[in-house]
């Protein structure tokens, strides 16, 4: 079958993006979940690879997959009634690191929006794409997450 686009051999794609993917899932999940999410991200990328129509912004593409996989795990954990532990905050940006532990109690979507916005500096368009929703919905999720955190702190 002739490919319509010239994609890099997957080995090269994997080598170029593995650190970034591992960083993304590690910030959102604890160690054992992060490892599963890392593997699942690249398996999903492999399944979708032959259907890609262009080879641009592969970094954004795979990070979107990673974020969706991590959010699925968070959703599953919270529907199990289990509160996910956040990984140690030493790699996080200082200001965010101070509040990161509080985000564990937020609903998954709000938590992801808050972490991606304030921990990663992603803009709302990217967060919306990662969450499978709109830019506006991502903005609302982050702001309602922040409101909830403020409410908790003043309790």
């Amino acid at each position: 079958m002739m490919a319509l686009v010239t994609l890099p051999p997957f080995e090269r794609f994997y080598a170029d993006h593995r650190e970034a993917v591992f960083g993304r899932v590690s910030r959102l999940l604890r160690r054992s979940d992060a490892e599963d999410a890392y593997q699942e991200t690249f398996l999903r990328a492999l399944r979708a690879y032959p259907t890609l129509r262009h080879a641009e912004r592969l970094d954004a593409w795979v990070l979107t997959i990673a974020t969706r996989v991590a959010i699925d795990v968070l959703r599953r954990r919270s529907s199990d009634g289990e509160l996910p532990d956040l990984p140690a905050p030493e790699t996080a940006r200082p200001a965010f690191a101070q509040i990161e532990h509080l985000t564990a109690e937020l609903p998954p979507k709000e938590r992801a929006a808050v972490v991606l916005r304030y921990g990663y500096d992603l803009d709302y368009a990217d967060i919306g794409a990662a969450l499978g929703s709109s830019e506006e919905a991502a903005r609302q999720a982050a702001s309602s997450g922040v409101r909830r955190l403020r409410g908790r702190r003043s309790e």
Partner: protein
Amino acid sequence: MTITDDLDRRFRETASAEGLLDVAYDVLDSPVGPLLVAMSERGLCRVAFDGEPERDLDSLARTFGARVLRVPRRIESARVELDEYFEGNRRSFDLPIDVATLPVFQQRVLRELARVPYGRVTTYGALAGKIGSPRAARAVGGALNRNPIAIVLPCHRVVGASGSLVGYAGGLQRKRSLLRLEGAEAN
């Protein structure tokens, strides 16, 4: 936190086990230098003297599909057979071979080449005669020069009409080493 070797290996082997790859490969050590060895779903599809692995990966991706990944475990059977060959304990290979993507003429040449026994040499002209195109010695030479599965498809056993070691994609030094290993006589 970092990506452990174990996590990396688990991903590669799961990808292979789930049938998600077009090609699995590894780079093996051998007495004639590193060998890039690759398997498609149909069988062994590449044994290349590892000059430029990056270029080999591009070529594999163009020919078989972009899902090319290093998975040592998938190459294990080829590694075992090649090790036995280099130790002098194997005279023919049992691996399935994938030449389906090659031009038909080249497939005919390579199929005939596979019949040249261990430790023997033949000539381009003789091989051309065997495939029923006795005047095509030059075309046979071209087909052998582009042999994607070196050693296992033994193009090192083909010499010039005078018995001299003419060209070899892997270099004459390697051709001489392989023939010496097999105990073959060549000028």
